[in-house]
Structure formats: structure tokens, C-alpha cells
């Protein structure tokens, strides 16, 4: 089975709906910040060196590293 699509693969302006998380403690923090299964996120922009990136989730901007973004699986 091909690896599921994750949030780090989103292009700028692209949207995706969260399907689930990799089983890591960090995903708990992401969930607290409003990244929950079924929620739509969109990629806003990245830092000049391509990492970290900034996503838009439930109406606000959340910065996270690519490493963290790979833990968010998309539908």
C-alpha cells in the first residue's frame, strides 16, 4: 500500500481534509491546536528555506515543521 498523503505534500494554496495522525505524542499537541480528523486545512506559505511551513486551520495560522506535517494524514 502506498504511503497515505500527508500535510507536508500540500502545495501553497492547496487544501486537504485531515484523515488521521501518525501515532506520536506530538500529534496530541496538533489536535489541541484544532487539527482534528475531518477538519480542512490549507497550506498558506513556507519559510524562505522551505521549512517550517504555515497552514491555515479553523480560521487561524499555525506554523509547524515539515516533520510535524508528515504526521498529519490527509484523506
Amino acid at each position, binding site marked *: 500500500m502506498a504511503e497515505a498523503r500527508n500535510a507536508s505534500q500540500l502545495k501553497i494554496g492547496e487544501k486537504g481534509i485531515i484523515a488521521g495522525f501518525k501515532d506520536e505524542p506530538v500529534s*496530541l499537541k496538533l489536535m489541541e491546536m484544532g487539527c482534528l480528523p475531518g477538519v480542512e486545512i490549507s497550506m498558506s506559505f513556507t519559510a524562505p528555506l522551505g521549512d517550517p511551513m504555515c497552514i491555515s486551520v479553523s480560521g487561524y495560522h499555525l506554523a509547524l515543521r515539515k516533520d510535524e506535517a508528515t504526521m498529519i494524514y490527509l484523506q
Partner: protein
Amino acid sequence: MPLKSHPKIALLGNPNSGKSSLFNHLTGLNQKIGNFPGVTVDMKSGHCKLDDNVTAELIDLPGVYSLYPRSLDEKIVFDLLSNVNHASYPDLVVVVVDASNIRRNLLLFSQIYDLGIPVVMALNMLDVAIDAGLTVDIEALKKELGIQVVQINARKGTGIEDLKKALAAPKLNAHEPMFVPSEGMELVDLVKSTYGIENTYLAYQVAQQSEDITWLDAQQKSQMAEWKREFKFYGERLQRLETVARYQKINELVSLALKEASPKKKNQLTRQLDAIFTHRIGGYLIFFFILFVIFQAIFAWASVPMDFIDSTVAQFSQWLANRLPEGVLTSLFTEGVIPGIGGVLIFVPQIALLFGFIAVLEESGYMARVVFLMDKIMRRFGLNGKSVVPLISGVACAIPAVMATRNIDNWKERIITIMVTPLMSCSARLPIYTILIAITVPDINYFGVINLHGIALMGMYLLGFFAALLSAWLMKLFMRTKERSYFIMELPLYKSPRWINVGVTIVDKVKAFVFEAGKIILAISIVLWVLASYGPGDAMDHAEENALPANWQETLSEKEAENKIAAYKLENSYAGTMGKWIEPVIKPLGFDWKIGIALITSFAAREVFVGTMATIYSVGVDADDESTIKSRMRAEINPDTGKPMYSTALSISLLIFYAFAMQCMSTVAVVYRETKGWKWPLIQTAYMTGLAYLSSLLVYQLLK
């Protein structure tokens, strides 16, 4: 619910929810900073008159996204709210909720709601929500939650009177909790009966956070860990279930109380500014330009008040010396205590300016972008984007800088940041750099504007910065941790800073510095005064006969004679003896016993160096004129070579030594406090001194 006449009210909310603005509105400038007992987290509190009969004590808690802590500061939130016996345990909690981010803000609110502590919701930023097309039905929220909900605007200060009324007569929450744990109830019941807790969610959180709770002792913690295994209480799994269940409940609530239309304005300003501030090239250029302005301000603008403080303290000291009867006590005051206090006060202008700038950058939302820009670069060196703030602060003073590392969640990144921050050239090194550069580097202007002294000075700052990065990188290789580094941070909307908040931050930081660091600097100054004023044997008593030739009245002026005696006394004092004693060790670096004395006296604080040099070369301590010291040092001849003592090799060696060595007791003390032990301050002192020694040795031996 009737309230006591002096209730304690805790203020809680997400970061960027406007909590600090509300706190400042409620308390005015009537605030004080204390410590949460047992932990070194600042506790801000203030008084607020709610009505004619009730004056509340307001306690400002750190901004958090949920009750589960991420960083050091955040741990105290649940620690306080779980401990009925805590001196600051609140009778009531105000949760500030940002209406434009209502779902995420309600997560924290729902947790507080379930703890069973009386709660009032202060709904803030409705104007931002309206711009985003969101209309909140406050009556629906009140009805569904059964508590007081008050609309406020913390920026403009509206709704504050309504909030005060609500606080004076809060409604007790009689509704069902928003979340009830579905698993792990055996342990929850056991915690309830063991610790006499009634509230289910409180008992559940006590079990979740047992490791971080200060009111549980080691035995109770290990018992709890055992129970968790026995009852299969899997904290992370439960937390995940809780978060999902809470958001579900929040969505139900929001569907009743929130109308979402298409946004009127799409945060256009923030989008446009982000395009500029996080631009591939422009973003870094703007950041460096802002840094440049800050440094310019710290060094150019602060020098006027600093000179004023310097001369006022010196004059006061002189004035006192002339008034008081001569004796040990007078000299302790005029040469130890008052210059010691002066040594603390002199840093106030720089610290005030630096924290003023940092507060403006933070208030405006720009600092979050700097962290975002720098994270990838800093990560390569084992640091975090958030390390940028302490490193910049380190240019003024390492003490507040080390304290600013607290919001770095990752332990390893925080320790590395603490360890390398003192390598940034702080303002106390500036006078040393200035004098040594003036002696060594020719004063040449290029094109009329670029000065060689200025370039050399900038070189010293860059040297410190690169040494910090390199040390961080080395430590990253040696330090092992199981904790995964992560970076998850809200990028708040840009807004113009509120000047009252900036002012309050400046006052807080200056107070913290004067009282925390000041105590230590003062104590050390007194010790140094003793070391420099007393000596072994009776040489000190016969200073006058020994220092001066028999017919001194014919050749020397009164002033010159006094200076000669002072120099003789210093040479024969305990400090002087120690200087001679360490001479063999520092000789390979090019230093003699005179510099040795300065090294010892400035071990406590670097700024003592110039004063000590002035005394050693008997130009008089009150000779404020730096050029006197400079010309005297230039004229000094090395007895071994017959050439000038302060050769290029020695000056550079000494410059590098001061750039790297941990010559600051206050920093050692603050690192001890922040890392809760002697391990890290000792390692830090050892590695920095080692780095300083080896670098100076290398430079001196190569250039000699």
C-alpha cells in the same frame, strides 16, 4: 454565588487572546511580581475593586492552549488549579476567549469548566470575529453553559465594568460537565478517595499529570505510576480521546451559538505583511535591519542615561565619603556598596530599551515570524527558532536572556540555548572591548563614515555569535535525549502594539533584574571590596611608608601620592596576592599579575575590569576619563621584553578571553535557578573558561 470580600481571581486564556491587556485594564499599574512557591515561575498579581464591598486579588496565569502543559511555565497552571491548599488557589477563574478563534479557545475553557471551579467567560475580539464573518450569540452561550459570559474589548478597554459586575456576582456552574472520561475510571475513583477529591475531571487530571504536580511527593508519584500500570491508564490514549470528545462537544455548542458567514475582510493586512516579512530575501533583510536598529539604540541611546547614572553614583559616593567620618564602615559604603548598586543601576537603560523593543516586536506579532524564519537555521545547531529571542537579549545581558528560554518546550534545545547564550557579547563587555580596541586598533576612517574601531567592535560581537553557534552544534552532538524536538506555533494576526503592555513589560523586566541579579552583584561587590582592601601580613598597614619614596613631597603631588598608595595597597591585598598566585597559569596567554588581579576581581562581573585597571595603574578610581587609563596602559612596558606591555598579541588575547570566559556570577546564579541544580552552571563555567583559555593561548602564541 456570594463572594468573599477579598476573593482571589485567576486570569487564564490562550496566548494572544488578549489576556495581558485585560489584566492591565483590571489592575492598572497596581501590579506586583512574586514567585509561585516552590517553582521559579513569575506570578503576576494585582488588585481590582469590583464594587463597593469587594476588592479582588487578580492572578495572571501563563497563556496556555490546554491544561496539558507543554513548557515549564505552563505546568504551574494545573498545579495551582488542582491544589485547594495553595496560597493563591483562586475562588474564581476568568477565562479569556478569543471569539475569532472560538473553537480552539473553548478547548481550554471547557477543561476549566469541568474542574468545578466557578468560572466566568470574558469573550474578547468580537470585532475581529465580525470581520471574519462570525457572529457569536452570547445569550445562547450563557444559556447552554449556565455561567456568566461577558463581552469585552481588551484593546479598547470596553466591557471592563460589565466584567467587574459579573465577577462580583458569578453564577455557579450547575450544568453537566462538557466531558466525562469514558475509560480509566477505576483509577479516577481511587484518586478521588485517596486524596479526598470530589470532582471527577480534577481527579482524572491529577492522575494524568501526577509527575508534574508539586503537591505530590515522590512516594505518591511512584504509587500513582504503579496504579496507572495496574488499571491500564494510558495517558496519551486518554488525552487523545478527550481532545476529540471535547471538540465534538465544542462543535455542538458552536453550532448553537455561532453564525458563520463569508468573511468581510480576509485578514488582508496580515496576508500582505506576511508576504513581505517572510519573503525569501526581504524577510531576512528586514530582520537584520530591525536588529541593527535595536543595537544602534541600545548602544547610542542608552549611553546618555548610563553616563548620567555613572557620574551621579560616583558623585554621591564622593559626597558621602566627604561627609561621613573616615573608617572601615564609610569605606565599605563608598567603595563597596554604593559602586555595587551603581553597577546594577547602570544596566537599567539598556535592559529597559532592549525589552521595550522585544515587547513591541512580540505585541505586534512580528516576533512569531522571526521565530518562523530562523527555525530551520537554528535547528542545524541544535537550537530552536525560539532560541532567537534569548540570543538577541544576550547582547544586552545574559540574565534576562536565560530567563527568556522558558518558552522553549524541548528540554535539550532549552539547555543548549541556556548554555550558549552567555557567549553573546553582553553590554558589560563593551567597556573592555572599547579600551582594548582603542589601544590596539588604529583609529582610521574609511570614506569618512566607516571607522576601523567600529569594524573591530562588530567583529567582537560576530565572534561571540559564531562561538555560540559552534558550541551549540557541538553540544547537539554530545547530548542525548529521548524527547523529540518539535515546533508548533500559532502565527497571530499583526496588530499595532498596545503601549501600556509594552510599558508594563519594561517595568517588570527592570524590576526583575534589579532585585534578582542586583542582590548577587551587590553581594559580590562587597566580597571584592574586602579582597581588595585587606591583605595578608602587615603590608597594608605600612602602605604609606612602603609605597612612597622618603622625599615624596618634593616630586609628587598629593593626588599622585594617593594613587601610588592605592596601587600599592591593591598589589598587597588578598586580590593582589591571588593575582600573583595565578600568574604562572595565565603567563602563556601573555597576562601578568596585574591583569591577573583584574581577572579575579572581574570574575564576579566583567564591568569591574576597567575600574581595577585604573587602580592598578594608579590613575585613581575616580578618574572617569577613559583616555587616562588608555594612555597609561599604552605606556606600560613589559619587563621581560622591554617592549610595550599591551602588544597586539596580548590585547587580542585579552579581548578573546573576555569574549568567551564566564566572567559573571549573576549568570551562574540564574542558570542554577533555571536548571534547578549545579550541574549545568558548573559545566557551563568550565567549558566557557576552557574555551577562553585555549583560544587566548592559541592567539597569543601565534601572534607573539
